[in-house]
């Protein structure tokens, strides 16, 4: 799709949403992701972002752009920092499925966020802000979003195991993690809205802090603790493995801030369950990327290299499983 096609198709939609005097003056494609195409749309009033379904391959079951937009709206209504959605496109003749939203400011590149001197104060407060945003997202009950799929631990383990087996490598550490996670599923009496990919890379950060949560593609209903565990997975700490929450915070701060914001008690072992779960999931994603190269779906030296990051995930799973085997409690005592 060319910028001119997008601009022409989008102009009446923009005029409808923001007023007849609002004119588009620029359309630029930002990313060419496999499952979505993101366009930056400059207008005479304010910059906008257009997300379109690309129909390509992706890991897991993405919810589709219209459901993604409705969920993002619900999260915004609950007070989480997300871009305001102006218009949802369903089966548009030129553009297909997608949505038009406000373009929020902020840095999204994790290494920059973890290093920039001007963001030092932001990093110090980011764990609390993440906990507060998650508490708002998780306050949305399943009943409010009946169009979302329920993906609890059992359902996800089943689908991850199927994907893992399809690759045909016999990896005893994966077997051990699958077995332990299946035998020890924590009870989740109240499934809620889960973002599904809550980590650096999907945050917009300004000098005021967390300004936007992006990428609601993997959202679903499930155990809220999944989002907290995923945020602790070592792959998302980038070059700061010592900072156990996202490369910027500590688990006990996250638990304390989340308990305060949501008014619930968090069992640290429950969080560790989901950190192990997230690490296993990242391991299967690494395999998935490598096999998309090996099976000639997407030939790429980067995807090939990711296959050998499986060793990192085995090490991380064993660190967690070793602590569990030694009966070391999740606070490290």
């Amino acid at each position: 799709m060319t910028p001119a096609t997008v601009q022409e198709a989008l102009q009446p939609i923009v005029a409808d949403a923001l007023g007849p005097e609002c004119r588009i003056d620029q359309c630029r494609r930002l990313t060419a992701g496999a499952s979505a195409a993101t366009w930056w749309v400059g207008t005479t009033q304010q910059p906008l972002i257009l997300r379109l379904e690309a129909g390509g391959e992706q890991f897991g079951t993405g919810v589709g752009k219209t459901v993604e937009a409705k969920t993002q709206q619900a999260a915004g209504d609950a007070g989480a920092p997300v871009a305001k959605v102006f218009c949802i496109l369903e089966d548009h003749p030129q553009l297909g499925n997608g949505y038009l939203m406000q373009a929020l400011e902020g840095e999204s590149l994790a290494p920059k966020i973890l290093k920039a001197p001007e963001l030092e104060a932001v990093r110090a407060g980011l764990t609390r802000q993440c906990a507060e945003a998650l508490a708002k997202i998780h306050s949305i009950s399943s009943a409010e979003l009946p169009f979302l799929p329920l993906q609890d631990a059992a359902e996800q383990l089943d689908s991850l195991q199927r994907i893992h087996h399809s690759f045909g490598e016999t990896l005893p550490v994966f077997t051990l993690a699958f077995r332990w996670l299946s035998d020890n599923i924590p009870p989740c009496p109240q499934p809620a809205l889960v973002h599904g990919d809550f980590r650096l890379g999907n945050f917009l950060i300004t000098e005021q802090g967390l300004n936007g949560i992006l990428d609601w593609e993997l959202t679903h209903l499930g155990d809220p603790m999944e989002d907290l565990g995923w945020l602790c997975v070592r792959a998302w700490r980038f070059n700061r493995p010592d900072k156990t929450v996202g490369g910027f915070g500590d688990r006990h701060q996250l638990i304390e801030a989340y308990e305060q914001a949501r008014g619930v008690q968090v069992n640290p072992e429950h969080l560790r369950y989901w950190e192990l779960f997230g690490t296993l999931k990242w391991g299967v994603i690494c395999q998935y990327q490598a096999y998309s190269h090996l099976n000639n779906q997407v030939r790429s030296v980067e995807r090939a290299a990711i296959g050998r990051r499986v060793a990192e995930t085995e090490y991380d799973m064993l660190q967690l499983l070793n602590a569990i085997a030694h009966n070391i409690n999740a606070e490290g005592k």
Partner: protein
Amino acid sequence: MPLNRPTQDELLEAVAEYLSQPVVDTTADRFYRRVACNVVELVRREQALQSGFQNNERQHLKLLLADDEDSVIELNRRLHQAIASGDLPLSPTLTEALLAIAKLKLDIDNPRYAL
């Protein structure tokens, strides 16, 4: 825990494939060249360390399974079955042995990773 796919040959094939393409975007090229370079370094480490890694893995697995089988592939298959069936439950002996192998594997795949 055997070394993963892509094998060293498949990794070198991916590097050669990338290098044989014309450069379209110099920023992207800088990134991919760094990836390609890291992949070549990984293969060099694998060539230097693989036989030591495999001997070590064999020793650990034989002890763990009390089995005198010599094929590492077969030992890993038996370990997988013992864990999946529940015959070998989570225990410090199991996780410590696997952790020792995982660290040696990282000496090949990413030597800066282990804490």
